[in-house]
């Protein structure tokens, strides 16, 4: 079973600050996804990265896939209270019928 380690596990910051969360593995993934989950709801996809070194931007969120496709990062610029939630990364092996999820980073942005 592939393992995905996310860090930090918890992060509490003030509105307007920047932050980066990480997703690391010793295994190579064919694709990696980031999801956000709000309390009482299911996760919702933010982005999928498939190419080593790929960078994708979604408004104030920047996602990067490592060159070796073993790790990824999520950077949020000028965090807002609406960014509060659990951020999950999920990696998929080539030709596997399933993905592996990390344990998540719980982000709290205080006004």
């Amino acid at each position, binding site marked *: 079973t592939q393992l995905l380690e996310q860090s930090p596990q918890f992060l509490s910051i003030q509105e307007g600050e920047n932050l980066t969360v990480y997703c690391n593995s010793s295994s190579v993934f064919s694709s990696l996804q980031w999801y956000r989950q709000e309390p009482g709801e*299911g*996760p919702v*996809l933010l982005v*999928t990265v*498939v190419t080593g070194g790929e960078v994708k931007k979604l408004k104030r969120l920047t996602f990067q896939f490592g060159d070796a496709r073993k790790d990824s990062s999520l950077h949020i610029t000028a965090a807002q209270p609406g960014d509060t939630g659990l951020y999950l990364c*999920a990696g*998929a092996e080539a030709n596997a019928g399933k993905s592996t999820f990390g344990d*998540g980073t719980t982000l709290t942005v205080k006004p």
Partner: protein
Amino acid sequence: NAGVTQTPKFRILKIGQSMTLQCTQDMNHNYMYWYRQDPGMGLKLIYYSVGAGITDKGEVPNGYNVSRSTTEDFPLRLELAAPSQTSVYFCASSYQSGAYEQYFGPGTRLTVT
């Protein structure tokens, strides 16, 4: 489109009881998944299916069973419920695996006492 629907939303079971968690998707997705999520943690895969009639074990299958008789439905059966099965259960579906988005249901919160 309803997407992925799950019933019930909440359930309390006594130790040793059995129940079935229902999951239905209306997106004609081939792939369906059952996950459990413990408080403050990520998702652990219980079972998954790549199409009707085909199921496979995930990371934590013990104590659970599934069936996939149709494309739309993927019920999860708990036999002899135990306190360790207290968790939130999410069903998800996707067109294919890998880079394809998984669409999640709203979850079932299960407590075993």
